[in-house]
């Protein structure tokens, strides 16, 4: 299963994702710059990513807690998600995300 990540300089990384890992864990395991400060507790909004294209509709929709936490994301867009809340699964093979800008 692949997770395709565009970093903040525009480089594309094709990561091997594992079933049941969160997208945040896959990205952090690859040492890409994602601070994910709270460690996956949906409590900080520093694992913020943009979902590429049609993938937004294929993802299970965000829970209210994630929607509320995104209020603390910087540069939030309609396709914003918290990567700690995206659980990798066979249906998400090839999921494409872009790392959102961080706080200055």
């Amino acid at each position, binding site marked *: 299963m692949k997770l395709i990540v565009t970093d903040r300089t525009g480089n594309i990384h094709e990561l091997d994702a594992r079933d049941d890992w969160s997208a945040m864990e896959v990205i952090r395991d690859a040492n890409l710059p994602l*601070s994910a*400060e*709270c*460690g996956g*507790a949906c*409590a*900080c*909004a*520093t694992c913020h990513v943009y979902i590429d294209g049609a993938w937004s509709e294929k993802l299970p929709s965000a829970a209210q807690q994630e*929607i*509320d*936490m*995104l*209020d*603390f*994301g*910087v*540069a*939030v*867009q*309609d396709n914003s998600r918290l990567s700690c809340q995206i659980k990798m699964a066979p249906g998400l093979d090839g999921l494409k995300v872009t790392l959102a*800008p*961080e*706080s*200055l």
Partner: protein
Amino acid sequence: MTERVAAPGGIHKTDVVIIGAGPIGLFAVFELGLLDLKSHLIDILDRPGGQCTELYPEKPIYDIPGLVEVTGQGLTDRLMDQIKPFGATLHVGQMAESLEKAGEGWRITTDAGTQIEARVVVVAAGGGSFTPKKPPIPGIESYENTSVFYAVRKMDRFRDKIVVIAGGGDSALDWALNLQPIAKRLVLVHHRDGFRAAPDSVNKMRALVAEGKMEFHVASIKSLRGAEGKLQGVVLNNKERGDYEIPGEMLLPFFGLTMKLGPVANFGINLHENLIPVDTSKFESNVPGLFAIGDINTYPGKLKLILSGFHEGALMAQQAFRYCRPNEKLRFQYTTSSSSLQKKLGVA
């Protein structure tokens, strides 16, 4: 005895200064206290607990030995209880800003002007100090502290100004409501028509918007217009209108906090990817007398777990004792059997 919250400013002397009042800094007070060493704690937040109380006060933690389930706030409360006998002094709402040699030990100065002299300094700063998130809007830095503020210190600064507040949390809504009566115009900008803030504040805000006393835009901030630090306009963007400019003289972005290493980076300690390498027998940095425990340190096999930090604090305290009491013999004792430890704990 109980912990004491010190007023900002003043000069203090103690055995050990701990930077960071999270769970690891708090438990270090306990381990140092058993060895009769006095501690002062400095934290940028206005209360102890660090990440536990700032990020997940209500979330349960399941891997603290002996506690099947405890929340971040619950763990902090228990640690505060546990360290009560040792009368640590808390310097909260202050950032440890500079470190210099003072005799055999150190002098730490905070951004509130507090000076603390101690033989030993322990960095227990976790992921760094909590500071407001700064949205990546091009050129925003050139307006900081003149037109862009991440906190309200003097409300009067915003009197008769066109104030734009960005965000949807409690700080955004609370300040929108507090500044609305004195601002020339108050504009709230948020990316959605929904808020994580308390429903009561949201209702008040909506009422003011309905009465035409506050403006609300579902939009994101794209850029700023102004000159020489003086903001004149804020360019917003949303699906319906694309880019459009609104007047704005002051901008207050409220997007919560993030952790930055901050001034510790300038303390002269070796760093590796913003972490402090330590030896695992004493948890001392490359600088003798400067220690690092908890998430801020790194060593082979390091796990960022609260329980690791507790262990690190216990070993740190042994070496701190050798620095602080060079002429005394270190006596290793158990709290279950030592009557002198039990006296210190106030249970004998």
